[in-house]
């Protein structure tokens, strides 16, 4: 009898709950293994700092993936927007820099979305092509870090309110906004509909092209915000900050780790937040135990594949 109750309980648990359960397990493990050091202010702040940029990108990526698309160009876009912001802020014009970076993001998102929907190019190839285009421009114009952000803007990257860094608040804000869009607005329902079955959505009167373009614009905007955050941390723009961080594939991995189906139509923001936190907590734990950084990659690969294998099992049963 109790077995049945347990069974139905675990059945009712979505992937998002599973990832938070895993997060809890790793936290407990960290507290046991790492002791006071793991629960210290430094570690807690570190986890938030580390996850904020990836978290923001992954929220945007969630939108693209939910709509049945994906965006490989976020990493180079982060580099590009960090440079645009830092160059424009060199004269002290913070608002101009932010606006410039976000405008560039919107443009890139529009082009991605338009190429995918109007020219019928597979999202993988369209955003890979966009990656090459931006990479070429970056390599052509920059050899290294450029521009400078004023001290006031650097506070975005380093200030904190109590134990919570401003960057984590920014991440939370972005997550809340996207959660609202997905669960409380028509656009959100349309995104799920298009990701679930684009033909059915179209026949039900959804302008599917427009929905896909919107998700790509929002996804690029998130990458632009992450670029601003990284520019404020570095104090300048850098042409490789996005690709060095591996934000393209890592953000997709975090989304999938959070239980969002790669084929689209199923999942949400909460799971992605859990996925990003899980990756960051694992990272902190490994740092604490002074685990070799290459070993970290191996574990990360295994965790991602194993998690998806588990989700698929659950969906089938």
């Amino acid at each position, binding site marked *: 009898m109790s077995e049945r109750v347990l069974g139905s309980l675990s059945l009712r648990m979505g992937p998002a709950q599973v990832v938070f359960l895993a997060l809890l397990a790793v936290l407990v493990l960290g507290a046991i293994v790492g002791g006071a050091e793991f629960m210290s202010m430094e570690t807690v702040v570190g986890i938030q700092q580390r996850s904020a940029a990836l978290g923001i990108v992954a929220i945007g990526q969630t939108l693209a993936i939910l709509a049945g698309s994906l965006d490989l160009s976020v990493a180079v876009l982060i580099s590009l927007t960090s440079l645009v912001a830092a160059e424009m802020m060199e004269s002290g014009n913070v608002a101009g820099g932010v606006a410039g970076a976000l405008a560039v993001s919107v443009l890139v998102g529009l082009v991605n979305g338009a190429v995918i929907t109007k020219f019928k190019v597979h999202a993988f*190839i369209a955003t890979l092509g966009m990656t090459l*285009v931006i990479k070429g421009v970056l*390599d*052509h114009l920059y050899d290294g870090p450029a521009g400078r952000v004023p001290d006031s803007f650097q506070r975005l990257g380093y200030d904190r309110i109590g134990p919570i860094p401003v960057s984590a608040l920014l991440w939370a804000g972005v997550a809340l906004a996207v959660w609202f869009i997905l669960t409380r607005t028509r656009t959100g329902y349309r995104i799920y509909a298009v990701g679930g079955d684009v033909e059915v959505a179209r026949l039900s009167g959804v302008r599917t092209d427009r929905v896909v373009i919107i998700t790509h614009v929002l996804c690029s905007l998130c990458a632009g915000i992450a670029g601003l955050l990284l520019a404020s941390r570095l104090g300048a723009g850098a042409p490789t900050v996005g690709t060095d961080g591996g934000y393209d594939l890592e953000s997709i991995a975090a989304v999938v780790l959070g239980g969002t189906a790669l084929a689209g139509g199923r999942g949400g923001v909460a799971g992605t937040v859990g996925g990003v936190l899980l990756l960051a907590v694992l990272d902190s734990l490994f740092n604490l135990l002074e685990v070799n950084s290459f070993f970290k990659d191996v574990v990360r690969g*295994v965790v991602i594949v194993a998690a998806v294998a588990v989700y698929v099992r659950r969906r089938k049963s």
Partner: protein
Amino acid sequence: MKYAIFVVLVLLLAAIALANPFILEPAGFLAFVKRAAPLVILAAGQYFVIVSGEFDLSVGSLVTVEVVVAARLIDGNEAATWPVLALLLALGLLVGLVNGVVTTLLRVPSFITTLGMMLILSGAVFLWTGGAPRGALSQTFRIFGRDTLYAVAIMVVVGVAAVLLTRATYGRTLIATGDNERAAALSGVRVTRTRILAFVISGLAAAVAGIMLGGFAGVSAQVGQGLEFSAITAVVLGGVALGGGRGSVVAAMGGAFTLEAMFTLLNLYGISGALEYTLQGVIIIAAVAAGAVQLPRLTPTPRKGDAHAS
């Protein structure tokens, strides 16, 4: 239209010949073929995976692993060459097998499986070598990538084998699997086995490409970087549909030649360095978009004549 990519290839080669007639001579042409050979082999392997409806993102890191492992194990010792070569092929086969099994039996999307494999492979090999490649390749090992005749011969053998494979029953079941998995399964295709074999072929192709690149490009931690994207791009340029079920392996290999010709041409015309990427990106999108425009004809919309038949 199936082989439209070869028209593009001939145009590109003609443009190269205008700037540098050396390519019209046998030596110049063979040098070009040799440069393209590793990518052609990777594209041939990737074709099998893509046409079955999957991705293989792990080939770039597999190439790096092959080269780094070879250098460490051979360490300049000629006698170790052949056993290590066998081991490298076995490694490629094993990685492909794991990719295939995880994708089909555990039902993990191949994008994630092979992405995880990419992290695992690159992490594991540098864990083993302590962060930087060590050791050296033997003279015999280097010949496969460095000697033009060897490189071209290997490529031709791989290419012919790939074509024969697609012409055999396996090729037809593979396309059926990629086109409509359920229909294929209901008509008696062993879908799982077919897909696993496709991943094994891709792993083997990456092993061969790695062996050649070790001799051609030397030992470095970056030797395979980005090759997975180049291989997928080449296959797609050849008109093979992502999502599976459509396309020919000959055209996929033609796509790889075209990509290599494009690099050569951009270099020749001095658009070297940075903006090369930009142009490459635009061309790839444009080429795929041009291919997609013709797609509607292939969708099974009822034609006028069909109304009477049904």
